């Protein structure tokens, strides 16, 4: 049942990059969870992450069997399923940190907003594949995609998880711009959008959300909360200097100065222990990963596949940019994990599904529609 050509065309290089990043991620995570006192308890997180990674690779493998073009045909089914899961977080969701984000299925805690990202990318790729034109998308072409975006956006923002919601819009916006939008549409949206900003500020945002943005602009505003985290994160990164303090030797990390050091702030552990050199290596790996993704988009002979590959690359790109920017104090503190490095099952699985799709597109690049 397997076409020989598929195996010949398998993108070993891309898989190699993913494996390298995963390996780096596990190493940094090991550092983050074992350094300092009481390592035994937190070791569990390392094992759990290993299991998630394993599951991720399994998902990649399985997903290769099905032709990616089937995704396009079934996109509405996935979309409705994911929206349904989002709705059910309201009904059965587990409240954590003041918001309902998780669904608990037996031993598995999942965050449907993560899967929603992939599902939305597939849907947008399917819709845009039919409306691409040299002159770009007009207003009428945007009604359907806008609807597809706003439903999950509303649901996620209501959880409330503004960070993931905005990430969703960011990804969708990037894909839309990639497909090309008519100039007049862009001008109209900027014209209408700019006056909306103050409205959103005054009526749309919760106080703590405003607080985060204000704190970013002026860290002295909240020197005890986010401001302090950013300071400690900067100390950790900066103190790594050129070559770092060495594996498991990061004092900022070991002494637990950093909040969320194994999830959102994990980059500072790398930066402290491996220094500038380590960071450059990771950035380089990510850089290669992203260009490989764009290359897959370019080589695909199928419009749906190209847009899909681009969309997934965009998703990875934004997560990297926002997370690293935040940890280095370039952006407000928002909860976005660093792909394949941060601890977290939903994030690992989502990214792995994304990579699986990219590999899938890559090995079928010559099969046009």
């Amino acid at each position, binding site marked *: 049942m397997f076409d020989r050509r598929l195996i010949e065309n398998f993108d070993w290089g891309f898989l190699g990059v993913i494996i390298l990043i995963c390996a780096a991620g596990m190493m940094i995570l090991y550092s983050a969870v074992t350094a300092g006192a009481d390592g035994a308890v937190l070791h569990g997180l390392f094992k759990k992450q290993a299991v998630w990674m394993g599951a991720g690779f399994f998902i990649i493998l399985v997903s290769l069997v099905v032709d990616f073009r089937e995704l396009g045909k079934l996109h509405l089914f996935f979309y409705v399923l994911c929206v349904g899961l989002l709705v059910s977080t309201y009904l059965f969701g587990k409240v954590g940190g003041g918001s309902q984000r998780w669904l608990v299925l037996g031993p598995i805690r999942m965050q449907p907003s993560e899967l929603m990202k992939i599902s939305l990318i597939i849907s947008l790729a399917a819709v845009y594949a039919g409306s691409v034109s040299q002159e770009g998308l007009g207003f009428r072409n945007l009604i359907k995609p806008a609807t597809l975006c706003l439903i999950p956006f509303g649901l996620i923002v209501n959880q409330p998880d503004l960070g993931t919601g905005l990430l969703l819009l960011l990804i969708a916006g990037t894909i839309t711009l990639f497909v090309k939008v008519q100039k007049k549409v862009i001008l109209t949206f900027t014209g209408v959008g700019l006056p909306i900003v103050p409205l959103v500020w005054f009526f749309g945002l919760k106080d703590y959300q405003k607080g985060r943005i204000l704190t970013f602009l002026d860290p002295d505003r*909240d020197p*005890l909360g986010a401001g302090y985290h950013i300071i400690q994160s900067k100390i950790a990164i900066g103190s790594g200097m050129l070559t770092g303090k060495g594996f498991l030797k990061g004092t900022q990390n070991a002494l637990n100065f950093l909040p969320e050091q194994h999830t959102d702030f994990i980059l500072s552990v790398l930066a402290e222990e491996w220094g500038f050199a380590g960071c450059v290596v990771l950035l380089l790996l990510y850089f290669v990963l992203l260009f490989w993704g764009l290359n897959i988009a370019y080589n695909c002979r199928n419009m749906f596949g190209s847009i899909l590959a681009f969309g997934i690359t965009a998703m990875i790109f934004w997560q990297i940019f926002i997370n690293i920017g935040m940890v280095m104090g370039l952006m407000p503190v928002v909860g976005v994990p660093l792909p394949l490095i941060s601890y977290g099952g939903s994030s690992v699985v989502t990214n792995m599904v994304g990579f699986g799709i990219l590999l899938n597109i890559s090995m079928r690049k010559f099969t046009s529609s």
Partner: protein
Amino acid sequence: MGDINRNPDRDWLKQRLMGASLCIVLVFSLLLLRLVYLQMIKGEEYRRLSQTNCVRLKSIKSSRGLIYDRSNTLLVDNRPAFDLSIVLEDAKPVKETVAHLSGLTGEPQDELMASIKKAGRSAFYKPLVLKRDISRDLLAMVESHQFDLPGVYIDIEPTRHYIYEKTAAHLLGYLGEINREELQSGKYPNVKTGDSIGRYGVEKSFEPFLQGKRGGRQVEVDVNGRVIKVLKTVDPVPGKDLYLTLDLKLQQRAEELLAGKDGAVVVLDPSNGDVLVMASTPSFDQNDFIGGISSKKWRALMDDPGRPMNNKAIQAEYPPASTYKIITAMAGLEEKVIDRSSTFFCPGFYKFGNRRYHCWNRHGHGELDVVGAIERSCDVFFYRTGEELGVDKLAQYANGAGLGRLTGIRLAHERDGLIPTAAWKKKRFKESWQAGETLSISIGQGFNLVTPLQMAVFIAAVGNGGTLYRPRIVKAVRDYRGKMVKEIEPEITGGLPVSPENLALVRKGMLKVVHGSRGTARRIRLKDITIAGKTGTAQVFSRKAGEKFDNKKLGRTLQDHAWFVCYAPAENPKVAVSVMIEHGEHGSSAAAPVAGELIRSYLGAPDPAMAMLSEHGKDQQE
């Protein structure tokens, strides 16, 4: 178009992807530059900061809002408590330091170590509380050995202090340490582990106002943990102060009068619903809850049959007994079942079917009109009125008078009581309503249940001409500078479903309860103040018709509950009082004197002896 839709046009795609690539290159350059800046240019500085690990965070607790009574007497404030804490990183070697501390304080070493172990990994640089609220002696001891105890500190934390222990304990409430679920719920953004939040009473319902906002300092410390430099400070914001409607003196008097009894007293201002008194006995000392109540004390409170942790004014439900006859009278007059001149003859019992329903006065009251029936609390008169009205009509008027529904007082755990209807019984017991049961209902026995607060709100409405107010306990919320944050206005929740003429008849009957020659509460008559009221004696268990018990021979817990509700002065009421004494036997003997005494002390009627000495005493006191 055509081809482009399906198979991407190479040039088109290349052009689009070039843009994307450019973005990636730009962003990665930016990140790289930032890394260069942080790790190369500022690296030395951050390395130094990380090596000394000298940036610490010190949280400053805010003080909780104060609580005043209506005449601005301070009821609840904060006192400084001294907490013994340790910063492990500075306390090296930890074992020796703790051993030394244990020797000085007499605290077992294991216990001190246990709290250190519990804090786990996150504890290196955070001050960890070893013992809360230490004594002055211990404080002096630790201070004088500061040099031998590196890393051991005394933190001063504002702690709640209830100035008049036990007074209005149920109304004021108490605090309790926040638990993990509450912390995670996100409802308390300013609260951290170990902090307390309102758990009961006003402390609970006004938590958002009372709670202040934590402040803190980012400080640079030296190797010994001493602060070298304060980097940034955020001052704590104190909580807002509450100004209650409560009258401290009257509350204290009410509690004195209730001492030794189980029961509740509510005094309202009929003109606006202000709660002047809310007392419930037995009570508890809120100061016991500070820093966590001991499990022994808690057990004792929970096991006490008098239920000291219950605010009986709002949480306990009792049959309203004869006080309910006011409702039956109102309903009868409004529905024209009776009028001002209709009379019934009371032979001491009422024949219904082949059963006899007795009047409390077995000898009978003779011929009575509605005013006389209220004055003497004749059961027979109201059996007949109630029978003709039916249970649903009665319920309609009781609900209209605010019974069987929440008064809306801003206290948690308020109970709504129960006003039965035929439909309710069908639903609850799957049985139809029996006409005989209506007779019990019409004199306030049977399924009826009300709270002392509901009765107070109702009787205040009778007194003020028919307006039902939402009981108000807090008049104003001000910040610590005295600036008004929120003013709570009186709130009307409804009106008695009765015409002024009919209400006047009822009021006349109630006046005669105290001032009539045969009124059931004539013993509480005061010289200068007119009181209009109604007594009630609620059966704790139901008796068979005609069965007679000698209350004295019954165990105390089977004895009747005593009610008295009233307002005074009758012409222009300034207070409405509801008194419930559990197992007090008779409203007239147990409950009414409490109300009489409260009215006397509030309205300032001098003692009879004093009145003769000073004729203008009354003017002075008003």
